[in-house]
């Protein structure tokens, strides 16, 4: 029975493996890396790029399991489930997994973000057989031992508590809660002390069975490994990975795109020397066609490091901060727009006033030709650098697939950016930046924070 299934799978592999190839251009044809894409009979999408510059293999498995799939009272279950994968399987104890992986100098880690979870294996080519087998084992046969769950919960809760020492963490936690309210993006990925306590072994096992399914996953492999070797590894180690029960799949909730009705200012008192400020509101989703115009606009406003307006004014001209930046989180569902900055408590009001001034400016005046040209040159020109290593390529390919950016994304990206006009920049600034209704969180020494500079008489009642 078993061997029959294997044979059948192998047959399918032979035919499907080379179905879809697409070139992956990094600036010049000479450095093109070819990507092979296939969907296995069990629904798993596999992306593969051969690179033989070093004897290493980088593997990323993306699973569609994140806070988006959690019930609010079990916040943190996606993160905890992922962390538990490497804490014991049906044939290996936690200590054995670590020892085997680390003995060959490899690493096997999991990470959970707003939209998905990844399992990453970094291994020398000579140890790929061992690494892939352990990776497949933790993916398919985790045993979620009660004792290990309890240990992990204590570490997560302790880390959550220690994070409170970090003022930018405190600010960020308060900010997302205010912007997203009940939406999962409003919670920490690793949950809260209360929600973690409420997660039981059964909950983790159920969450695992609902989400860790081949049709819910993308496998991306980059490095010194041939297609034949990869298909052999997949056939031997992932051939048994089957969907359990499709009817149980939980639905991804829909974002309510309701605008904030009023501005809100939250001050959190801490005995520190700087005010840690986050200014912002709801932003856009990754799929929004305006994503590229927003990328250009944000580069000019505060995403472009020393080239950005916020950095130029608040750091270089005013000397009021070491770091200021703005960002849009282009997530599966609309994420946040935020400006984050630290400045001595006494300057908080001046800095906020300047942020508002810059937001108003980019919403009402067209950017200069130079600004537009520089932003586009950076965004398109930095692509090869962003995809320099096998680890980066593996992660990138999985994300491109997850966000449905298209198999020609790398080729098309420069066009998407170069098409943006000054009028687009003005239009998206007007549409997606809100100088009236926003959230400001300030974590700092309340006695020293002076907000009179930006609170003009008309909005203080």
């Amino acid at each position, binding site marked *: 029975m078993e061997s029959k299934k294997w044979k059948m799978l192998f047959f399918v592999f032979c035919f499907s493996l080379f179905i879809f190839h697409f070139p992956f251009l990094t600036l010049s044809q000479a450095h093109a890396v070819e990507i092979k894409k296939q969907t296995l009979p069990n629904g798993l999408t596999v992306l593969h790029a051969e690179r033989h510059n070093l004897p290493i293999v980088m593997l990323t498995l993306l699973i569609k399991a994140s806070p988006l799939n959690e019930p609010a009272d079990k916040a943190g279950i996606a993160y905890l489930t992922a962390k538990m994968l490497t804490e014991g399987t049906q044939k290996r104890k936690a200590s054995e997994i670590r*020892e085997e992986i680390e003995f060959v100098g490899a690493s096997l880690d999991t990470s959970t973000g707003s939209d998905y979870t990844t399992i990453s294996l970094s291994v020398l080519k000579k140890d790929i057989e061992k690494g892939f087998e352990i990776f497949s084992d933790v993916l398919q046969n985790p045993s979620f031992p009660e004792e290990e769950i309890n240990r992990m919960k204590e570490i997560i809760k302790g880390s959550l508590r220690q994070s409170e020492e970090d003022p930018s963490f405190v600010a960020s936690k308060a900010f997302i809660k205010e912007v997203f309210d009940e939406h999962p993006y409003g919670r920490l990925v690793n949950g809260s002390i209360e929600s973690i306590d409420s997660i039981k072994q059964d909950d983790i096992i159920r969450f695992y069975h609902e989400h860790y399914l081949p049709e819910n996953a993308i496998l991306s492999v980059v490095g010194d490994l041939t297609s034949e070797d990869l298909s052999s590894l997949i056939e031997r180690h992932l051939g048994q990975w089957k969907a359990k029960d499709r009817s149980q799949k939980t639905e991804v909730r829909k974002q309510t795109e309701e605008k904030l009705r009023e501005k809100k200012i939250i001050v*959190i008192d801490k005995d520190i020397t700087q005010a840690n400020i986050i200014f912002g509101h709801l932003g856009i989703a990754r799929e929004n066609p305006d994503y590229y115009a927003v990328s250009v606009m944000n580069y000019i406003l505060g995403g472009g490091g020393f080239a950005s307006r916020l950095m130029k004014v608040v750091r270089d001209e005013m000397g009021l901060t070491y770091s200021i930046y703005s960002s849009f989180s282009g997530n599966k569902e609309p994420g946040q727009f935020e400006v984050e900055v630290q400045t001595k408590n006494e300057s908080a009001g001046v800095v906020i006033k300047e942020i508002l001034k810059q937001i108003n400016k980019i919403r009402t005046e067209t950017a200069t030709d130079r600004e537009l040209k520089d932003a586009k040159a950076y965004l398109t020109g930095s692509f090869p650098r962003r995809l*320099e290593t096998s680890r980066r390529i593996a992660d990138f390919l999985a994300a491109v697939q997850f966000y449905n950016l298209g198999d020609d994304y790398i080729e098309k990206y420069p066009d998407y950016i170069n098409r943006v006009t000054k009028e687009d920049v003005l239009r998206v600034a007007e549409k997606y930046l809100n100088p009236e209704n926003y959230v400001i969180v300030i974590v700092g020494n309340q006695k020293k924070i002076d907000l009179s500079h930006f609170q003009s008489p008309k909005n203080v009642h």
Partner: protein
Amino acid sequence: MRLFKFVLIFALLFIPFTIHASVKEYTLKNGLKVLIIEDHKAPVATFQIWYRVGSKDEPAGKTGISHLLEHMMFKGTHKYGSKVFSNIIQRNGGTDNAHTTKDYTMYHQTLSSDRIGLSVELEADRMRNLLLDPKEVTNEKNVVMEERRMRYEDDPQSSLYEEVISTAFKAHPYQWPVIGWMSDIASIERKELYRYYRSYYSPDNAFIVISGDVKAEDVLPKIKKNFGNIKPSKRSVIKNRTEEPQQRGEKRVYLKKEAELPYILIAYHVPSFPHEDSFALDVLSTILSAGKSSRLYKGIVYEKQLALNAFADYSGFHRDPFLFIFGATAAPEKNVEDVEKAIYDEIEKVKREMPTEREIQKAKNQIEAGFVFAQDSTYSRAFYVGMFEMLGNWRLMGKYLEEIRKVKPEDVQAVAKKYLTDDNRTVGILIPTKSRKEEVGSGK
């Protein structure tokens, strides 16, 4: 410290393929050394220029001057205005930055390899023609003070690190934080910066490392053209000569600060690379701290559940002897005294029982694999070559590999017995104080 943790993981090498053959070395007449590593896997290149000056070279009362000067290097020359350097690099799809350490200051750009000429031209320009506009100096001092607030004053664990380092050394300038003390930063004047710049930013006190998709025969003429005319500084460079006297008895320091959990650091004076004991110390720190199968994680975090995290960090890549540092964050409701005792128990265990051959082999495998992974990035490739050059000569990298391979269990035990002693340690403990309240207001 963060930088050196990164270095620690990757820098202890055991190379399965030769890197020596791929480094090309040239020296210009003015003393500027150039190291080129050709690697054509991606159309990317990294340019690094290393100046042999760091906080250990600073005069008392002017701590942080090396770092402030690093900031000023981005604020314009006679030819290019403030931040034009970074803007040009970004406009060409590149990224640039710099960092200052106790021993050196390094500037770097990573960009499309066909633009490498930009780095050459711009770095040559700011080696000699820095503007140091007085207004910009005043402004940048404020920026650095904000940086200090962010990195140290408001970060309790980093504050403890600063306390421990400055307590461990009583004579050697390693005691000073690289960023400088707040009042020293405020007191630095333009003329002091200029003097410092003209003394240390000289071709014979620097070297260049280029790694990536470049050909030496293309890039060398560019370097000669741009750097060749820069004359070596006439000012004599003052190098630190102070040696730290031997410590005779434990030192303890406490820091009371708003924080959530107690944190402990324990630092032992140790020699740096290429001292004969440095290799075994590296393997020792790997056994104690690399990964979840390491002794500290297994013993203190996993089994005893006393700490949320625990580490051992041997920063052997210093010009002068530095420290072997243990650290741990106490788990909620646990005593930091018990964490301290658990760390000593792990140290005593190494002294008492010989580490196994398998454990030593695992450490060597971790070191080797980490190094191979790092080779995928042109920045890291250049960094390792540069680090060894900074310590004496990039060829030391080969010696390092050989020596790491030779380390035996008894060597690891011997260095633990020799250096991890009660009288040689400085202990720092963060005692959390707490008070916080929240106020929600509406603008309307």
